[in-house]
């Protein structure tokens, strides 16, 4: 059975529910997340649904660089999400602060406040990147029960891509 069909079957069984939380982003990533759910991209094929309440979600998709105003609420929402919970940082700001790094009211990324399990970069992260990120995440959850490690992502890359990987990942790949 192809990878895609295994993911779809898993998703239909598990149907991961996503809580989308904006930590002070410019809204571009938030719109691309919603766009990923509209007909052209149709993230719902993977069984992914946006749900409003933390207590009913499996995955937190967070955008934004975490403004100081919003930090407490982010942490509080995180605590309300039941275990096992997965946090995905969507967009470059959520990953590292992006273009807002160093500004006085910005903490510099989701992982400055809570533990992050996966990062989807992009400014904004395109719907394709979001779907790709969620597909990899869901596949990894199905096979290992955990989010993917960087080394396993390297295994899926085409030859020659190793030159562009972050340091450490290529070495880990060599040791296999």
């Amino acid at each position: 059975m192809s990878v895609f069909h295994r993911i779809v079957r898993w998703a239909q069984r598990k149907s991961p529910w996503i809580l989308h939380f904006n930590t002070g982003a410019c809204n571009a990533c938030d719109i691309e997340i919603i766009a990923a759910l509209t007909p052209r991209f149709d993230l719902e094929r993977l069984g992914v649904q946006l749900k409003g309440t933390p207590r009913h979600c499996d995955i937190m998709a967070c955008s934004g660089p975490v403004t100081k105003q919003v930090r407490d609420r982010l942490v509080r929402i995180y605590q309300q999400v039941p275990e096992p919970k997965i946090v995905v940082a969507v967009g470059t700001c959520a990953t590292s602060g992006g273009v807002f790094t160093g500004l006085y009211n910005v903490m510099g990324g989701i992982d400055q406040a809570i533990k992050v399990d996966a990062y989807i970069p992009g400014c904004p992260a395109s719907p394709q990147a979001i779907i790709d990120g969620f597909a990899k995440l869901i596949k990894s959850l199905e096979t290992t029960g955990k989010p993917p490690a960087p080394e396993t992502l390297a295994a899926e890359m085409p030859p020659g891509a190793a030159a562009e990987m972050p340091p450490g990942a290529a070495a880990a790949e060599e040791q296999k």
Partner: protein
Amino acid sequence: MPRLPPEPRVTAASLAADADRVVTVPIGPQHPALKEPESFMVDLRGEKIDAVRMRFGYNHRGIEKGCEQRSYTQDLYLVERVCGICSYSHSTAFVQAVEEIAGLELPPRARYIRTLIAELERIHSHLLWLGVAGHEIGFDTLLMYTWRDREQVMILLARLTGNRVNYGMNTLGGVRRDIAAEMMPLILKVVDSLEERTKTYIELALTEQTLIQRLSHVGKLSKEDALRLGTVGPTARASGVDRDARRDDPYAAYAELSFNVVIDDHCDVYGRTIVRLGELMETYSIIRQILKQMPDGPIATKAPRRIPEGEAVSRYEAPRGEDVHYVRGNGSEKPERVKVRAPTLANFSSVSKMLEDGYLADLPIVIAAIDPCFSCTDRMVSLRDGSSTRRTMTWDEVSRMGIQWHKERGLDLSTLRIPGSAGE
């Protein structure tokens, strides 16, 4: 994984009934030591809103200070990201002010390309708004259709500029990328296609009684109040205010183009819908003129790295309304001061006015109708009726409650169809 029992349904009626009792708020664990940051503090009188106080700043990142610490070129990228929907508006408003201080005269082709991108942004923004408004009133079909249509513009913008959002198109003195001749027919094709789609939405807005009823007499803002409170954009124009920076204070290539400013006198959410639909039609016409008239020539003029001492104010008609940027140069590579007044801030005080004496069930659509430049999805709404106890709901809960409230009164938009979509 375990699912918790379903949430008890909170309705406006149940809130009104609970007013005199101490209520355990059925939303999330309470941490008395940690205050909920409420965005909207609503005083209720039964099902109606007495007054609303709003508190914002979630999006405050410190961009103006950041601009002083970065070069003008770096600031182009920072300012572009003030808002991810009208990113080109901010980028252009900023760069225009800088160009004025530096005394730069842009080549005509650059001005036309800026206008083209600006109007393409208006299309994506207004279609986005239609979808969001649809979602807030339980008309998700509209969200799916308009955002599918919107994809045509997003793809086109990505082809023209390299990105769906944050185009990186401006440079000091012009634009960074030319529009190739072979792109012109593609742009025209998108415009033709979206014009047909927009006519469908206009037909819907003019003939579908459920929709008209749902949106009419909601979020009322008289012309006097709109003027008094400094309202801008489609929100103001729907209250009969005849202002549009493209006509009143032309920039880019607008002085050379012919278009109508769309005014309406409904003074409500329905009017704001009509104005945006009308603006879409005007935009298609503007883009066709641009494609016909765009002069040849260079796309940028040489700009200095150090911008002289001086100051300028730039006014730009973003999809949401007038965007104002003030820049002061001090002779160095970094600005002395950058001040951004986004359109949503200008409409801040009119929102409370629109909500007063309206139904709580209409709060989400009224706020959505000013097309706010902040993410509503996670804002908390706190409610107080009579007693001094405040109860808190998430935006999502208020939204769903509002949709349910109207359903109970015979306005169910979930089954509405888009005209002419039967064969799809």
